[in-house]
């Protein structure tokens, strides 16, 4: 194989492809992350519709595929085939480019998201700054879309959205700074903005930053958790697209593919901000108690988790297939669900096999080293994705539970509650960090 492929596969390299200077593998990682996020958005779409329906004692999508599993695909095909309308009075070029700005901003931040110590496209030393900066560009897409539509509802939605995002960015940034301050309490005494460095700092200090200086870390995390919902324009802060007042807000005039690009950008941004929260406060890719439970046996036990998760999903799908009504109408659906269960079970088996092989092979052999590295990579990605998934479920939960804020309430919460608290937390973190540690 050519040198540019094999050079990164060396086991002694423990940095991201971007840091190792391997453009080929960086590109592969970019493609994997792009595909993974797109699939995650599709899954999220289905889960959100099902979960919301169950919150409201409905069934949700049931017709397209077993339990509506193929509904997102049907939706995607419908959106692709729909007529693409550009209003006659709209600013053509700006109307065309607006969804792309949002999408670009939402996907660019994935460059620095650390799925593991070496499972990221690149590791910038300004990582978190880069993430905040580029994700703040997303608001440009919304503002410009609202203006280019040349219509009243979109314009009002865009104005609301920009005011909201600008005001919550302040509290968000201050909460992030207090977490960054905590990284500087390392043994070496130097802080870092690098996403991977932040997680490694948590490992060195032996504590997730959410529990550090209790309750300061927790408060900063809570502020971020509120601000990130507002930043992504999700309920209960979805005033930019409040359907009872503004039809659909900034994307009222959009249809078909362009509308779906907005949705894709919104969900990608949700995953991105959840990743920031996980990285900064919840220990990133680390499994629980990484310093305490790092013996061989524990590593083996934790490496079984990904396989067992897929096994559980396979079992649920299998039970679902068994519980299908015994009628010939449901025959195809039952077969489809059974095949889905088999696929999931196969993935589970593969993951378990990797874990067992890595656990049982003698540690010195080259094959064991390779599989151990592979297993650790899967582990890191698994724990990171699991933590992010919890946040994604919380997004759905918020949407199902809370009524929408009024605009003055939104501004009051942002400027009069979150901002002073985050400033206070920042000052207290600095004081505690200097004098009590």
């Amino acid at each position, binding site marked *: 194989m050519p040198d540019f492929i094999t050079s990164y596969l060396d086991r002694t390299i*423990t*940095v991201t492809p971007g840091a190792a200077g391997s453009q080929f593998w960086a590109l592969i990682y970019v493609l994997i992350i792009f595909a993974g996020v797109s699939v995650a958005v599709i899954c999220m779409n289905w889960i959100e519709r099902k979960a919301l329906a169950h919150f409201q004692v409905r069934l949700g999508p049931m017709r397209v595929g077993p339990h509506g599993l193929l509904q997102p695909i049907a939706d995607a095909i419908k959106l692709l085939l729909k007529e693409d309308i550009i209003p006659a009075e709209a600013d053509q070029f700006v109307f065309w480019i607006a969804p792309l700005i949002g999408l670009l901003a939402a996907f660019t931040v994935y460059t620095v998201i650390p799925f593991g110590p070496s499972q990221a496209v690149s590791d910038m030393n300004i990582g978190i*700054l880069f993430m905040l900066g580029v994700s703040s560009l997303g608001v440009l897409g919304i503002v410009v879309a609202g203006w280019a539509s040349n219509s009243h509802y979109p314009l009002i939605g865009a*104005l609301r959205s920009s005011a909201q995002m600008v005001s919550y960015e302040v509290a968000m940034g201050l909460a992030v700074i207090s977490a960054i301050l905590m990284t500087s309490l390392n043994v070496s005494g130097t802080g870092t903005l690098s996403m*991977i460095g932040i997680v490694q700092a948590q490992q060195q200090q032996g504590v997730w930053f959410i529990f550090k200086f209790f309750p300061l870390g927790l408060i900063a995390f809570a502020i971020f958790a509120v601000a990130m919902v507002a930043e992504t324009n999700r309920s209960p802060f979805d005033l930019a697209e409040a359907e009872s007042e503004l039809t659909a807000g900034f994307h009222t005039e959009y249809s078909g593919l362009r509308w779906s690009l907005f949705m894709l950008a919104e969900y990608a941004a949700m995953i991105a901000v959840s990743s920031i929260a996980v990285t900064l406060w919840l220990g990133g890719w680390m499994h629980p108690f990484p310093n305490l439970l790092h013996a061989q046996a524990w590593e083996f036990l934790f490496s079984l988790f990904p396989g067992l998760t897929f096994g559980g999903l396979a079992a649920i799908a299998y039970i679902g297939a068994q519980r299908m009504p015994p009628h010939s109408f449901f025959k195809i659906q039952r077969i489809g669900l059974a095949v889905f269960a088999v696929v999931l079970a196969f993935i589970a088996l593969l993951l378990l096999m990797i874990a067992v092989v890595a656990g049982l092979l003698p540690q010195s052999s080259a094959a064991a080293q390779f599989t151990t590295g592979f297993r650790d990579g899967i582990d890191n990605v698994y724990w990171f994705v699991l933590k992010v998934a919890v946040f994604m479920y919380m997004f759905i939960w918020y949407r199902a539970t809370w009524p929408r804020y009024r605009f003055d309430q939104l501004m009051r919460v942002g400027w009069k509650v979150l901002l002073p608290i985050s400033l206070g937390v920042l000052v207290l973190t600095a004081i505690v960090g200097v004098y009590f540690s």
Partner: protein
Amino acid sequence: MNPAMAMAMTLNATDNSGMAPVATPWFFYSLAALAVISGVLVITRRNAVHSALALIVTLLSVAGLYLMLYAPFVAGVQIIVYAGGIMVLFLFVIMLVNIDRSSKERRFNRIWPVGLTASCALLALFVSAIVKGKDLFVDRMIPLPEGSNTQEIATALYGEVVKTSQYPKGQYMMGQYTFAFEIASLLLLVAILGAVIMTKKKI
């Protein structure tokens, strides 16, 4: 394994200063061209929103140039403050203005000869600095071989440091260049006061 990889291997995860710069001239010229073209668009578009979008492109390409100068922090702040913060406020204000009417209005740029003279003078200053600069501050000059890449220039400026994040920019700002830094902040203060006075008729 090539030597660049061997060098990269010895670095730890938070250190990426070991990366050899790739296609530096190509990136520089394309970023510079992007900045200049969109900068021209900013002043030639009649529609204020188009101007603002072009200005965002200019600011982003300047951020790219900062990255090439091994100043990632400045690049990040440039994106957050200018592209993300100030330009959103710009668009916010522009959207409240009736674009159709204002784009048809004749512009009150009767002082364009003054502007042209000033910009020509600035251009002349830059050109003369490039042409004659070699003889002006001989004692302060850092000798660099022709065709050095940006990393070598950064090393010459800041000395050998292990990590990019350790370039002592903050110290320079508060030490050697305090005066320039304070002048810049005074300028900002004047701009803020001017904005308040111009918008509020009665203070």
